[in-house]
């Protein structure tokens, strides 16, 4: 727990799980959860390099910006998904092919 590699391994596994979710899920919100996992794994990397790689607090500030971006992304993505649901009556992203009805 006191070396960089441990955290990088955890982050790599978390990234792979998120990728699996993004690839296999059909529900838009479930895909969004996979994206959240990927963003979290990136954040673990940032904070790990801040702790062990001499990035000091810059790494943590970058992780902070990633969290801000994730919040904005989640809000807009959910608005889009709810709109798709209202118009097409489904959240299956395979069915959402049109930009306009």
């Amino acid at each position, binding site marked *: 727990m006191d070396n960089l*590699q441990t955290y990088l391994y*955890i982050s790599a596994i978390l990234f*792979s799980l998120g990728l699996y979710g993004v690839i296999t899920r059909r529900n838009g919100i*479930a895909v969004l959860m996979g994206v959240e996992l990927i963003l979290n794994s990136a954040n673990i990397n940032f904070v790990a390099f801040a702790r062990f*790689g001499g990035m000091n607090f810059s790494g*943590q500030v970058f992780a902070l910006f990633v969290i801000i971006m994730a919040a*904005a992304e989640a809000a*807009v993505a959910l608005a889009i998904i709810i709109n798709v649901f209202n118009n097409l009556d489904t959240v299956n992203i395979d069915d959402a092919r049109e930009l306009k009805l």
Partner: protein
Amino acid sequence: MDNIAFGLIVAITLGSALMVVISQQLLYSAIALLFTLFGVAGLYIFMWADFMAGVQIVIYIGGILVLLIFGIMLTNKISSVNISHTSLQRRVGAVITLGVLGFLIPMITKTSWLQISSEEPAQTADSIGRLLMMEYLLPFEVASLLLLGALIGAAMLSRNTN
């Protein structure tokens, strides 16, 4: 003692992350995501980033996760068949995922990482605040603009036009 706690946190993080991507009930996925996010906050604390852990809990669990659960419940009809909860192309997904993992793990093992030993900082929020207000002032302002744009955009998109 520390090692046990660390192992437990890692197990919770990765185990519930697995639940997030394979659970067939979307609400269970959301609850599992709660534990994943808490586990990541625990990892931050192990990396001396206590402020980041607080931010993680407040924004991710208090904000994004609640938003996700709202989304799940708003897009769910009792009458509809639960077809949208299922997964597709599991085998292809597993192959691609294992391929990526099989690329990342040896890469992490082989690379000789530069490791600088540093002592535990006395306070973290203080230093982060200084960095945000001095070195990263422009990204900070741009981020606030991004949040404002996202707020207005999300409100515009989800409002009822009829």
